[in-house]
Protein backbone atom coordinates (compact mmCIF):
# COMPACT_ATOMS: atom_id res chain seq x y z
CA UNK A 1 0.00 0.00 0.00
CA UNK A 2 1.25 3.45 -0.88
CA UNK A 3 0.97 6.25 1.66
CA UNK A 4 -1.11 9.30 0.86
CA UNK A 5 1.94 11.56 1.06
CA UNK A 6 3.82 9.45 -1.48
CA UNK A 7 0.76 9.43 -3.69
CA UNK A 8 0.59 13.24 -3.65
CA UNK A 9 4.27 13.34 -4.57
CA UNK A 10 3.68 11.02 -7.53
CA UNK A 11 0.63 12.97 -8.70
CA UNK A 12 2.53 16.26 -8.53
CA UNK A 13 5.43 14.93 -10.55
CA UNK A 14 2.83 13.49 -12.91
CA UNK A 15 1.35 16.96 -13.31
CA UNK A 16 4.83 18.30 -14.05
CA UNK A 17 5.39 15.70 -16.79
CA UNK A 18 1.83 16.38 -17.88
CA UNK A 19 2.47 20.12 -18.23
CA UNK A 20 5.23 19.39 -20.71
CA UNK A 21 2.98 17.02 -22.65
CA UNK A 22 0.28 19.69 -22.56
CA UNK A 23 2.62 22.31 -24.04
CA UNK A 24 3.69 19.86 -26.73
CA UNK A 25 0.04 19.05 -27.43
CA UNK A 26 -0.78 22.77 -27.62
CA UNK A 27 2.02 23.28 -30.14
CA UNK A 28 0.65 20.46 -32.31
CA UNK A 29 -2.92 21.73 -32.01
CA UNK A 30 -1.98 25.33 -32.91
CA UNK A 31 -0.50 24.16 -36.22
CA UNK A 32 -3.26 21.63 -36.79
CA UNK A 33 -6.02 24.18 -36.31
CA UNK A 34 -4.53 26.56 -38.83
CA UNK A 35 -3.31 24.14 -41.47
CA UNK A 36 -5.08 20.80 -40.76
CA UNK A 37 -1.77 19.02 -40.75
CA UNK A 38 0.30 17.32 -38.09
CA UNK A 39 3.83 18.56 -37.58
CA UNK A 40 5.70 15.34 -36.89
CA UNK A 41 8.92 17.36 -36.46
CA UNK A 42 7.54 19.38 -33.53
CA UNK A 43 9.56 17.32 -31.07
CA UNK A 44 12.76 17.69 -33.08
CA UNK A 45 12.20 21.45 -33.32
CA UNK A 46 11.88 21.53 -29.53
CA UNK A 47 15.10 19.55 -29.24
CA UNK A 48 16.93 21.81 -31.70
CA UNK A 49 15.91 25.07 -30.01
CA UNK A 50 16.80 23.74 -26.56
CA UNK A 51 20.21 22.71 -27.86
CA UNK A 52 20.76 26.16 -29.36
CA UNK A 53 19.80 27.81 -26.06
CA UNK A 54 22.20 25.52 -24.23
CA UNK A 55 25.01 26.19 -26.70
CA UNK A 56 24.57 29.94 -26.19
CA UNK A 57 24.53 29.40 -22.43
CA UNK A 58 27.82 27.53 -22.61
CA UNK A 59 29.50 29.84 -25.08
CA UNK A 60 28.64 33.15 -23.44
CA UNK A 61 27.88 32.05 -19.86
CA UNK A 62 24.41 33.54 -20.27
CA UNK A 63 22.10 33.89 -17.31
CA UNK A 64 19.29 31.34 -17.45
CA UNK A 65 16.61 33.84 -18.37
CA UNK A 66 18.56 34.79 -21.48
CA UNK A 67 19.07 31.12 -22.26
CA UNK A 68 15.31 30.73 -22.43
CA UNK A 69 15.03 33.80 -24.64
CA UNK A 70 17.68 32.46 -27.00
CA UNK A 71 15.94 29.07 -27.18
CA UNK A 72 12.56 30.64 -27.91
CA UNK A 73 14.02 32.93 -30.58
CA UNK A 74 15.87 29.99 -32.10
CA UNK A 75 12.59 28.05 -32.21
CA UNK A 76 10.87 30.95 -33.95
CA UNK A 77 13.68 31.33 -36.47
CA UNK A 78 13.64 27.60 -37.21
CA UNK A 79 9.90 27.72 -37.74
CA UNK A 80 10.21 30.64 -40.16
CA UNK A 81 12.84 28.83 -42.20
CA UNK A 82 10.96 25.54 -42.28
CA UNK A 83 7.63 27.14 -43.07
CA UNK A 84 8.98 29.41 -45.80
CA UNK A 85 11.36 26.99 -47.47
CA UNK A 86 9.50 23.69 -47.27
CA UNK A 87 5.96 23.76 -45.97
CA UNK A 88 4.66 26.65 -48.03
CA UNK A 89 5.56 24.87 -51.26
CA UNK A 90 3.25 22.02 -50.36
CA UNK A 91 0.18 24.00 -49.33
CA UNK A 92 -2.17 22.30 -51.75
CA UNK A 93 -0.92 18.82 -50.96
CA UNK A 94 -3.02 15.87 -49.80
CA UNK A 95 -3.68 15.21 -46.16
CA UNK A 96 -0.67 13.10 -45.28
CA UNK A 97 1.82 14.75 -47.58
CA UNK A 98 2.80 17.31 -44.95
CA UNK A 99 2.99 14.55 -42.35
CA UNK A 100 5.58 12.79 -44.51
CA UNK A 101 7.46 16.02 -45.19
CA UNK A 102 7.68 16.74 -41.47
CA UNK A 103 8.72 13.13 -40.88
CA UNK A 104 11.61 13.76 -43.27
CA UNK A 105 12.32 17.01 -41.49
CA UNK A 106 12.46 15.26 -38.12
CA UNK A 107 15.05 12.82 -39.49
CA UNK A 108 17.10 15.73 -40.83
CA UNK A 109 16.94 17.81 -37.65
CA UNK A 110 17.88 14.89 -35.42
CA UNK A 111 20.75 14.02 -37.70
CA UNK A 112 22.04 17.60 -37.85
CA UNK A 113 21.81 17.95 -34.07
CA UNK A 114 23.71 14.68 -33.70
CA UNK A 115 26.42 15.89 -36.08
CA UNK A 116 26.85 19.16 -34.19
CA UNK A 117 26.46 18.04 -30.58
CA UNK A 118 26.71 14.19 -30.77
CA UNK A 119 23.97 11.85 -29.58
CA UNK A 120 25.01 11.90 -25.93
CA UNK A 121 23.09 13.12 -22.87
CA UNK A 122 24.04 16.53 -21.48
CA UNK A 123 23.03 17.97 -18.12
CA UNK A 124 20.99 21.15 -18.46
CA UNK A 125 21.22 23.87 -15.82
CA UNK A 126 18.23 24.04 -13.49
CA UNK A 127 16.55 27.19 -12.27
CA UNK A 128 15.31 25.49 -9.14
CA UNK A 129 17.06 24.15 -6.06
CA UNK A 130 17.53 20.52 -5.21
CA UNK A 131 16.05 20.68 -1.71
CA UNK A 132 12.52 19.30 -1.58
CA UNK A 133 9.83 21.58 -0.22
CA UNK A 134 8.01 20.01 2.72
CA UNK A 135 4.30 20.65 3.11
CA UNK A 136 3.44 18.67 6.24
CA UNK A 137 4.29 15.05 5.42
CA UNK A 138 4.33 15.73 1.67
CA UNK A 139 7.65 16.44 0.00
CA UNK A 140 7.60 18.13 -3.36
CA UNK A 141 10.47 18.67 -5.78
CA UNK A 142 10.93 22.36 -6.57
CA UNK A 143 11.60 21.51 -10.20
CA UNK A 144 8.16 19.88 -10.51
CA UNK A 145 6.47 22.95 -9.09
CA UNK A 146 8.58 25.17 -11.35
CA UNK A 147 7.58 23.24 -14.46
CA UNK A 148 3.91 23.36 -13.50
CA UNK A 149 4.08 27.08 -12.69
CA UNK A 150 5.99 27.99 -15.85
CA UNK A 151 3.61 25.98 -18.00
CA UNK A 152 0.53 27.51 -16.40
CA UNK A 153 1.95 30.99 -17.02
CA UNK A 154 2.51 30.20 -20.68
CA UNK A 155 -0.96 28.67 -20.99
CA UNK A 156 -2.49 31.82 -19.48
CA UNK A 157 -0.55 33.91 -21.99
CA UNK A 158 -1.84 31.73 -24.84
CA UNK A 159 -5.37 32.04 -23.50
CA UNK A 160 -5.01 35.81 -23.55
CA UNK A 161 -3.52 35.74 -27.03
CA UNK A 162 -6.25 33.61 -28.55
CA UNK A 163 -9.10 35.19 -26.64
CA UNK A 164 -8.35 38.87 -26.68
CA UNK A 165 -6.02 39.91 -29.49
CA UNK A 166 -6.64 40.56 -33.18
CA UNK A 167 -4.04 37.99 -34.12
CA UNK A 168 -5.61 35.34 -31.89
CA UNK A 169 -9.04 36.04 -33.29
CA UNK A 170 -7.70 35.74 -36.82
CA UNK A 171 -6.15 32.37 -35.95
CA UNK A 172 -9.40 31.12 -34.46
CA UNK A 173 -11.32 32.32 -37.49
CA UNK A 174 -9.00 30.40 -39.82
CA UNK A 175 -9.42 27.30 -37.65
CA UNK A 176 -13.19 27.53 -37.95
CA UNK A 177 -13.57 28.28 -41.63
CA UNK A 178 -10.71 29.15 -43.90
CA UNK A 179 -12.73 30.46 -46.78
CA UNK A 180 -14.89 32.68 -44.60
CA UNK A 181 -11.79 33.96 -42.85
CA UNK A 182 -10.20 34.84 -46.17
CA UNK A 183 -13.35 36.64 -47.27
CA UNK A 184 -13.20 38.70 -44.08
CA UNK A 185 -9.80 39.94 -45.16
CA UNK A 186 -7.63 37.72 -43.00
CA UNK A 187 -4.40 36.65 -44.66
CA UNK A 188 -4.58 32.88 -44.27
CA UNK A 189 -0.94 32.49 -45.33
CA UNK A 190 0.13 34.85 -42.57
CA UNK A 191 -1.85 32.81 -40.07
CA UNK A 192 -0.08 29.67 -41.31
CA UNK A 193 3.33 31.24 -40.65
CA UNK A 194 2.26 32.69 -37.32
CA UNK A 195 0.97 29.30 -36.20
CA UNK A 196 4.27 27.64 -37.03
CA UNK A 197 6.19 30.35 -35.20
CA UNK A 198 3.92 30.32 -32.16
CA UNK A 199 3.97 26.52 -31.94
CA UNK A 200 7.75 26.44 -32.16
CA UNK A 201 8.05 29.04 -29.42
CA UNK A 202 5.72 27.08 -27.13
CA UNK A 203 7.74 23.97 -27.89
CA UNK A 204 11.00 25.77 -27.08
CA UNK A 205 9.68 26.79 -23.65
CA UNK A 206 8.63 23.19 -23.02
CA UNK A 207 12.09 22.03 -24.03
CA UNK A 208 13.89 24.42 -21.70
CA UNK A 209 11.56 23.46 -18.84
CA UNK A 210 11.96 19.72 -19.25
CA UNK A 211 15.67 19.52 -20.14
CA UNK A 212 16.95 19.83 -16.53
CA UNK A 213 14.90 16.74 -15.62
CA UNK A 214 15.34 14.47 -18.66
CA UNK A 215 18.78 15.74 -19.71
CA UNK A 216 19.43 17.29 -23.06
CA UNK A 217 19.77 14.78 -25.88
CA UNK A 218 18.81 14.23 -29.49
CA UNK A 219 16.28 11.66 -28.25
CA UNK A 220 14.16 14.45 -26.72
CA UNK A 221 12.18 14.76 -29.92
CA UNK A 222 10.28 11.54 -29.24
CA UNK A 223 8.15 13.60 -26.85
CA UNK A 224 6.06 14.50 -29.89
CA UNK A 225 4.35 11.12 -29.57
CA UNK A 226 3.28 11.83 -26.00
CA UNK A 227 2.15 15.28 -27.08
CA UNK A 228 0.06 13.76 -29.84
CA UNK A 229 -1.43 11.24 -27.42
CA UNK A 230 -2.28 14.05 -25.01
CA UNK A 231 -3.94 16.05 -27.77
CA UNK A 232 -5.95 13.01 -28.85
CA UNK A 233 -7.10 12.31 -25.30
CA UNK A 234 -8.41 15.84 -25.01
CA UNK A 235 -9.84 15.89 -28.50
CA UNK A 236 -7.50 16.89 -31.32
CA UNK A 237 -8.03 20.53 -32.16
CA UNK A 238 -9.29 21.60 -28.74
CA UNK A 239 -6.81 23.70 -26.77
CA UNK A 240 -8.37 23.18 -23.31
CA UNK A 241 -8.56 19.50 -24.31
CA UNK A 242 -4.84 19.49 -25.04
CA UNK A 243 -4.07 20.80 -21.56
CA UNK A 244 -6.46 18.36 -19.88
CA UNK A 245 -5.16 15.46 -21.96
CA UNK A 246 -1.55 16.32 -21.17
CA UNK A 247 -2.16 16.49 -17.43
CA UNK A 248 -4.15 13.23 -17.45
CA UNK A 249 -1.50 11.44 -19.48
CA UNK A 250 1.29 12.68 -17.20
CA UNK A 251 -0.49 11.58 -14.04
CA UNK A 252 -1.52 8.19 -15.45
CA UNK A 253 2.00 7.57 -16.72
CA UNK A 254 3.46 8.32 -13.29
CA UNK A 255 0.86 6.29 -11.41
CA UNK A 256 0.96 3.26 -13.74
CA UNK A 257 4.28 1.84 -12.49
CA UNK A 258 2.86 1.72 -8.96
CA UNK A 259 0.01 -0.55 -9.97
CA UNK A 260 1.10 -2.30 -13.15
CA UNK A 261 3.89 -4.81 -13.85
CA UNK A 262 7.05 -3.03 -14.95
CA UNK A 263 7.00 -4.78 -18.33
CA UNK A 264 4.22 -2.66 -19.79
CA UNK A 265 5.28 0.65 -18.26
CA UNK A 266 6.56 2.14 -21.49
CA UNK A 267 3.57 0.93 -23.45
CA UNK A 268 1.11 2.85 -21.27
CA UNK A 269 0.88 5.99 -23.45
CA UNK A 270 0.43 3.87 -26.56
CA UNK A 271 -2.22 1.69 -24.98
CA UNK A 272 -4.03 4.84 -23.85
CA UNK A 273 -3.71 6.31 -27.35
CA UNK A 274 -5.16 3.21 -29.02
CA UNK A 275 -7.86 2.89 -26.36
CA UNK A 276 -9.01 6.50 -26.71
CA UNK A 277 -8.95 6.36 -30.48
CA UNK A 278 -11.14 3.28 -30.45
CA UNK A 279 -13.61 4.24 -27.76
CA UNK A 280 -13.93 7.96 -28.29
CA UNK A 281 -11.97 9.12 -31.34
CA UNK A 282 -13.11 12.70 -30.81
CA UNK A 283 -11.43 12.74 -27.38
CA UNK A 284 -12.79 14.10 -24.13
CA UNK A 285 -13.48 17.67 -25.20
CA UNK A 286 -13.39 17.31 -28.97
CA UNK A 287 -16.25 17.52 -31.40
CA UNK A 288 -16.78 15.07 -34.22
CA UNK A 289 -16.05 16.79 -37.49
CA UNK A 290 -18.54 15.99 -40.19
CA UNK A 291 -17.57 16.42 -43.77
CA UNK A 292 -20.06 17.11 -46.47
CA UNK A 293 -19.46 15.36 -49.76
Amino acid at each position, binding site marked *: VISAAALVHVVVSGLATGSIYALMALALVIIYNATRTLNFAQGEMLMMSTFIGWAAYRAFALPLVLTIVVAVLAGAALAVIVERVIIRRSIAAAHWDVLIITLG*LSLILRSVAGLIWTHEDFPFPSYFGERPIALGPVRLAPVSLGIIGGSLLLMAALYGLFGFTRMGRAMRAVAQNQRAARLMGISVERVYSLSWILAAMVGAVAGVLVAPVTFLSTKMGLIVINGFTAAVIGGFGSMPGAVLGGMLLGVIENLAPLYLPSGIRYSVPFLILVGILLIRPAGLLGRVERRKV
Partner: protein
Amino acid sequence: VRGGRAWLGVLGAALLFWPLLVPGYFVFLLSLTLANAVVAIGLNLLSGYTNQLSFGHAGFLAIGAYTAALLTIHAPGLPVIVTLLLAGMATGAIGVGLGIPCLRLEGLYLTMATLAFGFVVTEVIMNLDSITRGADGLRVPAPRLGGLFLASDISRYYLVVTVAAVLVAAAVNLMRTRTGRAFLAIRESEIAAQSAGIPVASYKTIAFGLSAFYTGVAGGLFAFTVGYLSPDAFDVFLSVDFVIMIILGGLGSVPGSIVGAAVVTVLHDWLAAFQNFRPLIFGTILIACMLFMPGGIARALQPVFRRR
Protein backbone atom coordinates in the same frame (compact mmCIF):
# COMPACT_ATOMS: atom_id res chain seq x y z
CA VAL B 1 4.31 -6.55 -74.13
CA ARG B 2 6.67 -8.82 -76.02
CA GLY B 3 9.53 -6.54 -75.05
CA GLY B 4 8.37 -6.75 -71.45
CA ARG B 5 8.52 -10.52 -71.52
CA ALA B 6 12.07 -10.46 -72.88
CA TRP B 7 13.16 -8.13 -70.10
CA LEU B 8 11.50 -10.43 -67.59
CA GLY B 9 13.56 -13.32 -68.99
CA VAL B 10 16.77 -11.34 -68.64
CA LEU B 11 15.86 -10.37 -65.09
CA GLY B 12 15.04 -13.99 -64.24
CA ALA B 13 18.36 -15.19 -65.62
CA ALA B 14 20.22 -12.48 -63.72
CA LEU B 15 18.55 -13.52 -60.47
CA LEU B 16 19.27 -17.18 -61.19
CA PHE B 17 22.99 -16.70 -61.90
CA TRP B 18 23.57 -13.84 -59.44
CA PRO B 19 25.35 -16.02 -56.83
CA LEU B 20 27.78 -17.25 -59.51
CA LEU B 21 28.59 -13.74 -60.69
CA VAL B 22 29.19 -11.79 -57.50
CA PRO B 23 30.89 -12.28 -54.13
CA GLY B 24 28.92 -13.74 -51.25
CA TYR B 25 28.17 -10.44 -49.61
CA PHE B 26 26.13 -9.24 -52.57
CA VAL B 27 24.12 -12.44 -52.47
CA PHE B 28 23.17 -11.57 -48.90
CA LEU B 29 22.44 -7.98 -49.89
CA LEU B 30 20.10 -9.05 -52.67
CA SER B 31 18.30 -11.45 -50.32
CA LEU B 32 17.77 -8.56 -47.91
CA THR B 33 16.62 -6.30 -50.74
CA LEU B 34 14.06 -8.84 -51.87
CA ALA B 35 12.74 -9.37 -48.34
CA ASN B 36 12.39 -5.59 -48.03
CA ALA B 37 10.72 -5.44 -51.44
CA VAL B 38 8.07 -7.88 -50.20
CA VAL B 39 7.44 -5.61 -47.20
CA ALA B 40 7.26 -2.56 -49.46
CA ILE B 41 4.70 -4.29 -51.69
CA GLY B 42 2.71 -5.24 -48.61
CA LEU B 43 2.83 -1.69 -47.26
CA ASN B 44 1.87 -0.34 -50.66
CA LEU B 45 -1.22 -2.57 -50.76
CA LEU B 46 -2.33 -0.78 -47.62
CA SER B 47 -1.05 2.76 -48.10
CA GLY B 48 -0.89 3.08 -51.85
CA TYR B 49 -4.25 1.51 -52.59
CA THR B 50 -6.48 2.05 -49.59
CA ASN B 51 -4.90 5.29 -48.30
CA GLN B 52 -4.06 3.89 -44.88
CA LEU B 53 -0.54 5.07 -44.12
CA SER B 54 1.19 2.80 -41.61
CA PHE B 55 4.14 3.71 -39.39
CA GLY B 56 4.00 0.28 -37.74
CA HIS B 57 5.10 -2.22 -40.33
CA ALA B 58 8.29 -3.03 -38.45
CA GLY B 59 5.89 -4.49 -35.87
CA PHE B 60 4.36 -6.82 -38.46
CA LEU B 61 7.81 -7.74 -39.71
CA ALA B 62 8.85 -8.59 -36.17
CA ILE B 63 5.80 -10.80 -35.64
CA GLY B 64 6.51 -12.68 -38.86
CA ALA B 65 10.21 -13.00 -38.11
CA TYR B 66 9.74 -14.27 -34.56
CA THR B 67 6.94 -16.65 -35.60
CA ALA B 68 9.15 -18.16 -38.31
CA ALA B 69 12.17 -18.36 -36.00
CA LEU B 70 10.25 -19.97 -33.12
CA LEU B 71 8.57 -22.46 -35.46
CA THR B 72 11.96 -23.46 -36.86
CA ILE B 73 13.35 -23.91 -33.35
CA HIS B 74 10.42 -25.82 -31.87
CA ALA B 75 9.21 -27.70 -34.94
CA PRO B 76 12.41 -28.32 -36.91
CA GLY B 77 10.75 -30.92 -39.13
CA LEU B 78 8.44 -28.39 -40.73
CA PRO B 79 9.25 -27.59 -44.38
CA VAL B 80 10.32 -23.98 -44.71
CA ILE B 81 7.48 -23.13 -47.07
CA VAL B 82 4.96 -24.17 -44.43
CA THR B 83 6.85 -22.17 -41.80
CA LEU B 84 6.72 -19.06 -43.99
CA LEU B 85 3.04 -19.56 -44.74
CA LEU B 86 2.26 -19.93 -41.05
CA ALA B 87 4.30 -16.81 -40.24
CA GLY B 88 2.38 -14.93 -42.92
CA MET B 89 -0.97 -16.19 -41.74
CA ALA B 90 -0.30 -15.44 -38.07
CA THR B 91 0.78 -11.91 -38.99
CA GLY B 92 -2.16 -11.55 -41.37
CA ALA B 93 -4.57 -12.51 -38.59
CA ILE B 94 -3.06 -9.86 -36.33
CA GLY B 95 -3.30 -7.42 -39.23
CA VAL B 96 -7.02 -8.08 -39.57
CA GLY B 97 -7.34 -7.73 -35.79
CA LEU B 98 -5.68 -4.32 -35.97
CA GLY B 99 -7.46 -3.36 -39.18
CA ILE B 100 -10.99 -3.76 -37.88
CA PRO B 101 -10.73 -1.19 -35.07
CA CYS B 102 -8.62 1.02 -37.37
CA LEU B 103 -11.59 1.33 -39.74
CA ARG B 104 -12.87 3.96 -37.36
CA LEU B 105 -9.74 6.01 -37.84
CA GLU B 106 -8.70 8.22 -40.67
CA GLY B 107 -5.62 9.98 -41.88
CA LEU B 108 -3.14 10.86 -39.19
CA TYR B 109 -5.11 9.15 -36.40
CA LEU B 110 -4.68 5.84 -38.17
CA THR B 111 -1.01 6.55 -38.76
CA MET B 112 -0.41 7.31 -35.09
CA ALA B 113 -2.34 4.19 -34.02
CA THR B 114 -0.07 2.05 -36.22
CA LEU B 115 2.95 3.85 -34.78
CA ALA B 116 1.71 2.91 -31.30
CA PHE B 117 1.16 -0.68 -32.49
CA GLY B 118 4.79 -0.89 -33.58
CA PHE B 119 6.02 0.27 -30.17
CA VAL B 120 3.78 -2.18 -28.35
CA VAL B 121 5.02 -5.12 -30.46
CA THR B 122 8.69 -4.52 -29.66
CA GLU B 123 7.78 -3.98 -26.01
CA VAL B 124 5.89 -7.29 -25.91
CA ILE B 125 8.79 -9.14 -27.56
CA MET B 126 11.14 -7.57 -25.06
CA ASN B 127 9.00 -8.75 -22.13
CA LEU B 128 8.08 -12.25 -23.30
CA ASP B 129 11.71 -13.15 -22.72
CA SER B 130 10.93 -16.73 -21.70
CA ILE B 131 9.84 -17.32 -25.32
CA THR B 132 11.67 -14.69 -27.36
CA ARG B 133 14.80 -14.34 -25.18
CA GLY B 134 14.01 -10.62 -24.97
CA ALA B 135 16.88 -8.21 -25.44
CA ASP B 136 19.44 -11.04 -25.63
CA GLY B 137 18.18 -11.83 -29.08
CA LEU B 138 17.26 -15.04 -30.81
CA ARG B 139 19.53 -17.09 -33.04
CA VAL B 140 17.59 -18.49 -36.00
CA PRO B 141 18.57 -22.04 -37.00
CA ALA B 142 18.83 -23.02 -40.67
CA PRO B 143 15.44 -23.84 -42.13
CA ARG B 144 14.70 -27.20 -43.74
CA LEU B 145 13.06 -28.15 -47.01
CA GLY B 146 12.29 -31.86 -46.91
CA GLY B 147 15.63 -33.54 -46.31
CA LEU B 148 17.55 -30.42 -47.32
CA PHE B 149 19.13 -28.04 -44.81
CA LEU B 150 19.27 -24.51 -46.17
CA ALA B 151 22.49 -23.84 -44.31
CA SER B 152 24.36 -21.73 -46.85
CA ASP B 153 23.69 -18.14 -47.85
CA ILE B 154 23.24 -19.23 -51.44
CA SER B 155 20.59 -21.85 -50.70
CA ARG B 156 18.68 -19.32 -48.62
CA TYR B 157 19.08 -16.79 -51.43
CA TYR B 158 17.24 -19.12 -53.79
CA LEU B 159 14.52 -19.57 -51.19
CA VAL B 160 14.10 -15.80 -50.94
CA VAL B 161 14.11 -15.31 -54.71
CA THR B 162 11.48 -18.01 -55.22
CA VAL B 163 9.15 -16.75 -52.52
CA ALA B 164 9.59 -13.11 -53.52
CA ALA B 165 8.90 -13.95 -57.19
CA VAL B 166 5.67 -15.72 -56.26
CA LEU B 167 4.54 -12.82 -54.08
CA VAL B 168 5.42 -10.20 -56.71
CA ALA B 169 3.51 -12.13 -59.37
CA ALA B 170 0.56 -12.46 -57.01
CA ALA B 171 0.59 -8.71 -56.28
CA VAL B 172 0.71 -7.82 -59.97
CA ASN B 173 -2.11 -10.21 -60.78
CA LEU B 174 -4.15 -9.11 -57.78
CA MET B 175 -4.87 -5.88 -59.62
CA ARG B 176 -6.74 -7.84 -62.27
CA THR B 177 -9.05 -9.47 -59.75
CA ARG B 178 -12.24 -8.16 -58.18
CA THR B 179 -10.37 -7.35 -54.97
CA GLY B 180 -7.65 -5.50 -56.86
CA ARG B 181 -10.15 -3.46 -58.83
CA ALA B 182 -11.88 -2.58 -55.58
CA PHE B 183 -8.50 -1.42 -54.19
CA LEU B 184 -7.92 0.74 -57.27
CA ALA B 185 -11.39 2.24 -56.95
CA ILE B 186 -10.79 3.02 -53.27
CA ARG B 187 -7.46 4.60 -54.14
CA GLU B 188 -9.12 6.97 -56.61
CA SER B 189 -11.97 7.95 -54.31
CA GLU B 190 -13.29 6.21 -51.26
CA ILE B 191 -16.62 7.95 -51.50
CA ALA B 192 -17.08 7.16 -55.18
CA ALA B 193 -16.16 3.53 -54.52
CA GLN B 194 -18.64 3.32 -51.70
CA SER B 195 -21.44 4.76 -53.79
CA ALA B 196 -20.61 2.35 -56.62
CA GLY B 197 -21.46 -0.47 -54.23
CA ILE B 198 -17.95 -1.51 -53.16
CA PRO B 199 -17.99 -2.47 -49.48
CA VAL B 200 -15.11 -0.16 -48.57
CA ALA B 201 -14.87 -1.30 -44.95
CA SER B 202 -14.45 -4.97 -45.91
CA TYR B 203 -11.84 -4.18 -48.55
CA LYS B 204 -9.90 -1.92 -46.19
CA THR B 205 -9.79 -4.80 -43.70
CA ILE B 206 -8.75 -7.22 -46.44
CA ALA B 207 -5.99 -4.76 -47.36
CA PHE B 208 -4.78 -4.73 -43.75
CA GLY B 209 -4.76 -8.54 -43.64
CA LEU B 210 -3.01 -8.92 -47.00
CA SER B 211 -0.48 -6.25 -46.15
CA ALA B 212 0.30 -7.95 -42.85
CA PHE B 213 0.49 -11.35 -44.58
CA TYR B 214 3.10 -10.06 -47.05
CA THR B 215 5.05 -8.41 -44.26
CA GLY B 216 4.85 -11.55 -42.11
CA VAL B 217 6.25 -13.74 -44.88
CA ALA B 218 8.93 -11.13 -45.46
CA GLY B 219 9.64 -11.31 -41.73
CA GLY B 220 10.32 -15.03 -42.12
CA LEU B 221 12.62 -14.37 -45.07
CA PHE B 222 14.36 -11.65 -43.06
CA ALA B 223 14.84 -14.03 -40.11
CA PHE B 224 16.42 -16.73 -42.28
CA THR B 225 18.56 -14.22 -44.19
CA VAL B 226 19.94 -12.41 -41.18
CA GLY B 227 20.00 -15.41 -38.84
CA TYR B 228 19.64 -13.35 -35.67
CA LEU B 229 16.68 -11.42 -34.25
CA SER B 230 16.52 -8.84 -31.52
CA PRO B 231 13.64 -6.50 -30.71
CA ASP B 232 15.62 -3.30 -31.20
CA ALA B 233 16.11 -4.14 -34.87
CA PHE B 234 12.37 -3.59 -35.37
CA ASP B 235 12.14 -0.04 -34.06
CA VAL B 236 10.15 2.83 -35.46
CA PHE B 237 13.01 3.83 -37.75
CA LEU B 238 12.62 0.57 -39.64
CA SER B 239 8.93 1.39 -40.13
CA VAL B 240 10.02 4.78 -41.42
CA ASP B 241 12.42 3.08 -43.86
CA PHE B 242 9.52 1.12 -45.30
CA VAL B 243 7.54 4.33 -45.73
CA ILE B 244 10.53 5.88 -47.50
CA MET B 245 10.67 2.86 -49.85
CA ILE B 246 7.12 3.32 -51.07
CA ILE B 247 7.23 7.12 -51.20
CA LEU B 248 10.45 7.01 -53.20
CA GLY B 249 9.33 4.08 -55.37
CA GLY B 250 5.81 5.29 -55.90
CA LEU B 251 2.56 4.84 -54.03
CA GLY B 252 0.35 2.19 -55.53
CA SER B 253 2.99 0.69 -57.80
CA VAL B 254 4.42 -2.82 -57.47
CA PRO B 255 7.55 -2.18 -59.59
CA GLY B 256 7.94 1.08 -57.70
CA SER B 257 7.92 -0.78 -54.38
CA ILE B 258 10.71 -3.05 -55.60
CA VAL B 259 12.84 -0.19 -56.90
CA GLY B 260 12.25 1.83 -53.72
CA ALA B 261 13.22 -1.15 -51.55
CA ALA B 262 16.35 -1.70 -53.62
CA VAL B 263 17.47 1.93 -53.42
CA VAL B 264 16.86 2.20 -49.68
CA THR B 265 18.50 -1.14 -48.87
CA VAL B 266 21.58 -0.43 -50.97
CA LEU B 267 21.88 3.13 -49.67
CA HIS B 268 21.69 1.82 -46.12
CA ASP B 269 24.51 -0.52 -46.92
CA TRP B 270 26.69 2.11 -48.62
CA LEU B 271 26.20 4.54 -45.79
CA ALA B 272 27.00 1.98 -43.09
CA ALA B 273 30.24 3.82 -42.37
CA PHE B 274 28.45 7.17 -42.13
CA GLN B 275 25.76 6.24 -39.59
CA ASN B 276 25.23 9.85 -38.58
CA PHE B 277 24.50 11.04 -42.09
CA ARG B 278 21.99 8.33 -42.85
CA PRO B 279 18.85 9.99 -41.44
CA LEU B 280 19.98 13.27 -43.00
CA ILE B 281 20.06 11.69 -46.44
CA PHE B 282 16.85 9.72 -46.03
CA GLY B 283 15.03 12.75 -44.64
CA THR B 284 16.17 14.79 -47.62
CA ILE B 285 15.00 12.05 -49.98
CA LEU B 286 11.55 12.07 -48.34
CA ILE B 287 11.13 15.82 -48.59
CA ALA B 288 12.53 15.99 -52.12
CA CYS B 289 10.13 13.24 -53.24
CA MET B 290 7.13 14.99 -51.75
CA LEU B 291 8.02 18.36 -53.23
CA PHE B 292 9.52 17.50 -56.59
CA MET B 293 8.56 13.92 -57.43
CA PRO B 294 5.10 13.08 -56.10
CA GLY B 295 4.28 9.59 -57.30
CA GLY B 296 7.88 8.56 -56.83
CA ILE B 297 10.22 6.89 -59.30
CA ALA B 298 7.33 4.90 -60.78
CA ARG B 299 5.52 7.99 -62.02
CA ALA B 300 8.71 9.80 -62.96
CA LEU B 301 9.62 6.92 -65.28
CA GLN B 302 6.14 6.43 -66.68
CA PRO B 303 6.67 8.59 -69.81
CA VAL B 304 9.84 6.64 -70.62
CA PHE B 305 7.98 3.34 -70.64
CA ARG B 306 4.91 4.67 -72.35
CA ARG B 307 6.92 5.76 -75.38
CA ARG B 308 7.79 2.18 -76.24
